[in-house]
Every structure is written in C-alpha cells, then in structure tokens.
C-alpha cells in the first residue's frame, strides 16, 4: 500500500474519532429530518414499512451483514486484481534467475 493510501486512511479514522471526542448524542440525521416532517401540521405517514427489525440488536446484525457482504466482495476483487498481476510482476525475480515458462 502506498504512503498516500496510508495517510488517507489515517485521516478517515480521525474524521470518525474526533466527533466522538467532542461529544454529542449521535442520533441519525435521517431521524432528525423525520422529526421536522412529523412536526408539520396534519402530517401522518401514509405507508409503514412492510417489515421492521424487531429490535436494535437485530437491526445492527443486519447492518453488519450489509457491511460484511460488501467488504467480502470488495476484498475478493482487490485480491483477484493483485493475483492476476503477480505473474507478470514476478517474472524476472525467480530464485535461480531463470525466466519462468510463458503461459
């Protein structure tokens, strides 16, 4: 990984951590906006979700599942991309100094 990627990842971590140190309630922005809509005179949602996670635990499990599935595919793609390049990259670095056979 390049130095550029490393410092960028460090900044991403700081962006997530600094607000935690500053403190706050950290509710969802979506819910805050929804609260304003709900405050509108005469508002009531005309349709409700077909299914809702029965508890916060189940919801966090499903959110984790979403992230895990995405990370799985992303990691596979990055791994495949590296594996595919390797044979070319290593062509002139075999132990006995000979070029590996061409595919």
């Amino acid at each position, binding site marked *: 990984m390049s130095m*550029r990627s490393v410092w960028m990842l460090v900044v991403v971590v700081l962006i997530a951590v600094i607000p935690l140190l500053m403190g706050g309630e950290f509710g969802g922005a979506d819910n*805050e906006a929804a609260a304003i809509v709900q405050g509108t005179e005469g508002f009531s949602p005309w*349709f*409700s979700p077909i299914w809702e996670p029965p508890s916060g635990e189940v919801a966090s499990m499903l959110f984790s599942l979403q992230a895990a599935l995405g990370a799985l595919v992303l990691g596979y793609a990055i791994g495949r991309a590296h594996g595919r390049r390797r044979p070319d990259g290593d062509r002139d670095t075999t132990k006995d100094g000979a070029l590996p056979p061409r595919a």
Partner: protein
Amino acid sequence: MHIMEGFLPASHALGWYAVSAPFVLAGAARIRTIVREQPEARLTLAASGAFAFVLSALKIPSVTGSCSHPTGTGLGAIVFGPSVMAVLGVIVLLFQALLLAHGGLTTLGANAFSMAIVGPWVAYGVWKLAGVAGLPFAVSVFLAAALGDLATYVFTSLQLALAYPDPVSGFVGAALKFGGIFAITQIPLAIAEGLLTVVVIEALSGKIRDEDRISALSGGNK
C-alpha cells in the same frame, strides 16, 4: 439521506419513481453491455456495488453531534460513468428498505434519485471537469467522490423542502432547515468518502501510473 417510508406525499413518491425509472433502465442496459463486451471489467463492477454496500451501512459520527453515512456511489460513476450506479444504488436502497426499515418502498424513487442518480452524475461531472482543468489524479477522484456524496444529501434536503415547505419561509426556508441537518453533518463524511475512494481505486488497480488506473479498471476502452 433516506426519506422514511410513507414520509413523502403519494404524488411526490410517484413523481420521483417516474423520473428515476429511465435512469435505472438506461443503467441496466449499460451494465449488460459492460458484462458482454468487457468481461474483465465485471470484477470492478462488482467492487463498485460492494463499495456502495459497505459505505452506506456505516453510520459515522459527525461534528454536528449526529450520525450519517457516506454513499459510496462515486467509485462506479468515475470508472464506468454515472448510469451503472442507478442500478447498483437501487439494489443497496432495496436491501435497506426491505430488511432494515431504513428508507422505504414508497420513497424508493426519491431516494434512488438523490443517491443513485444525482450523486453519481455530480461525481462524474466533477471528475470530467477536473480532468479538463488538469488536476492531479488523486485530487480529481477525491473531489468527484466527495462532492457527489454531498450532492446526494443536498438533493434530499431539496426533496423534503419541496414536499414540506416552511409555512413562513416557504421552500427556501425549508431547504435551509433540512440542509442544515443533512448537508452540514455530511461535510466531514464526504471528505472521508473522497479519501476512501482514492484508496480503493489504488488498491484495485495496483502499482501502475495514476493516469492508467481508470482505464485499467474499466476494461480499457472508456
């Protein structure tokens, strides 16, 4: 940026479905073409969808004291053009609407328009402009992904303001009110998404020159 189930008047819900549908159909056609003509780009296509899947699951604390999530739609828009993200974004939104009660089916059209259409098109536009302006690769990717992310949230604010204008200050007042919640919270997250997009493009394309990265990922001809 998720507008909750049943929170938009039926006429708005239908309207957003109508304007989103052509983009999704065009995106599906574009994906079919990519899969058929550039099979080596399938992996990047899957990675673009996966990136949006991961990032939109991560609710990250922001300096405003509330949480929001990035969208992850800039990556695919930069590599393949914005149309593919209309489809990939809708898949993410459907997962969240059906399994997490986050967003909704009635608001799917509106949420798709902000996250899967406006965001990617802004990202693509910024990416092209940055290319014309001759900005360095990493800066261009960063700006495209970050501004695309931010545009999605600004657009959500406009959608809500359109449906619920302030009784006193009207559409503009409501847009500022919703924008104050969404857009300000989103600024640091958009910066994070911009940086992550650069990192992922670098990881996917490996040790090659910056200017070759996108063509390597898109299968060569774009």
